[in-house]
């Protein structure tokens, strides 16, 4: 599983659209399964499943019809499609909503149905653009669970998400992008280790603390009322703060992908 991270406007969706052979590649080259996207679009698209950012289920059809009509686009014979659709409805737990019009599905059900739809052609590559946006924890967990299962079955999953815990849990490798450039690449734990260290000590911002940290040449960042101290050995820092600086108000926690993300792409709001 591979993750694309980045703030709004970083170029994630554009990259996804290029992989999907929808947006033209204006510079450089892009190959999927060893085929160039500019002249093997049909072959590539037939091996790929897509969960787009925006729900685009066919509102004119029921849940079942959505999947059947979609299988027709992939030239799947009718009997085979019927079988597969039943399987997929079961896979995303929508069997009892089979004859519901998609408009009246909840947000979570729509997302699940889109996931099922992206699987009708048994893709080798699955592209997910913000798969769990706006979902409740139950629905998110169900989708994660299904994605892990797919991965186990040998499907390559590429995803973008703003939920960094999601990426940290799911992805084997990721890149952080901004303004169309790749800032870092690696596994979640490597990236965290490399860019913020394994732990973070959070303390209240006061001049004495900063003086103390400067003396130790510690790596830290001031964020409003808070100071984040990046370290591989939180205990060493906390001991130092208590002993030498007589500061007691702080907390230590493991570093997360979110810390890396904010550190690399800054804290100012985007768009």
């Amino acid at each position, binding site marked *: 599983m591979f993750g694309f991270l980045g703030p709004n406007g970083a170029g994630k969706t554009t990259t996804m659209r290029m992989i999907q052979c929808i947006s033209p590649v204006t510079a450089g080259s892009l190959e999927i399964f060893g085929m160039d996207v500019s002249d093997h679009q049909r072959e590539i698209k*037939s091996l790929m499943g897509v969960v787009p950012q925006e729900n685009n289920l066919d509102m004119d059809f029921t849940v079942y019809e959505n999947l059947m009509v979609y299988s027709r686009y992939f030239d799947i014979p009718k009997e085979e499609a019927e079988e597969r659709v039943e399987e997929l409805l079961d896979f995303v737990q929508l069997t009892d909503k089979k004859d519901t019009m998609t408009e009246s599905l909840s947000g979570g059900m729509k997302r699940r149905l889109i996931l099922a739809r992206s699987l009708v052609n048994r893709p080798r590559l699955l592209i997910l653009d913000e798969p769990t946006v706006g979902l409740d924890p139950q629905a998110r967990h169900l989708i994660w669970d299904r994605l892990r299962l797919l991965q186990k079955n040998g499907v390559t999953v590429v995803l973008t998400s703003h939920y960094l815990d999601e990426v940290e849990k799911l992805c084997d490798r990721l890149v952080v992008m901004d303004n169309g450039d790749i800032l870092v690449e690696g596994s979640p734990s490597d990236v965290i280790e490399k860019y913020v260290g394994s732990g973070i000590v959070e303390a209240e911002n006061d001049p004495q603390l900063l003086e103390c940290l400067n003396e130790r040449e510690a790596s830290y960042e001031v964020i409003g009322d808070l100071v984040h101290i990046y370290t591989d050995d939180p205990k060493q820092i906390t001991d130092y703060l208590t002993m030498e600086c007589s500061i007691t108000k702080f907390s230590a926690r493991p570093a997360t992908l979110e810390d890396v993300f904010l550190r690399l792409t800054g804290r100012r709001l985007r768009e």
Partner: protein
Amino acid sequence: MRFASYFEIPRISSNAYKVWQRNKDVFMKDIKLNFLPPFLEPILYLIALGFGLGRFVESIDGVPYAQFIAPALISISVMYASFFECSYGSYVRMYYQKTFDAIIATPLTIEEVIAGEMLWGATRSMINATVMIPVIALFGLIDLRYSLLIIPFAFLGGLLFAAIGMCFTAVTPNIMSINYPVLLFITPMFLFSGTFFPLSALPQIIQYFAVAFLPLTHVVNVIRSLGYGILELSLLFDVVWIIIVCAILFVLSINMMKKRLVV
């Protein structure tokens, strides 16, 4: 070079048929409702205009007024069915329902989606004509000799209006703006294409304008002639005019939609 790119011949496979099938499936879900307008409208028009207004109109070219307008009603329905299907209908599917986005994530291309939409629009025109012919025949207002030829011709005419509708869909900034071509193009055609009175009643210059620029004129000409039971060589001019304009606009509309959607 940019201009030429609007007339590139699109590569379309039989996949366009799957888009046609999709629209047909939706149509079949409400088949009763969808069959009602082509069934009811000619009856209403014929009663109000044909037999109501017609009592005050002397025959036109030796033909009773109701018989004069009956083929025009089919032509108008051919125009409306595919134009509205490929303007409002396609716009809703493209913009609000994101149907096209979903389809182009599959092996289908955007060219095939647009072609399928237009083929479906033309099919709707053909369905309307097919429903209307027996209704009008029931009133004894159509000569049955060549009337079945109207059906394939309705497909061709329908394709022309589908392509016109699709061109507007490609440039309209929002759904409300489709009212402009309806008001400025479709409605004048409805009135001034030899539909409810012969073109010859208009000043010469407007007659030329209608023949050159109002596609419905040619559609009315052909359907009226077939409806009267006349098949003559002069109809070839109208048919050729329609084929040429249709081919140009079909290609143009696909390229225009491509430019709108591929970003």
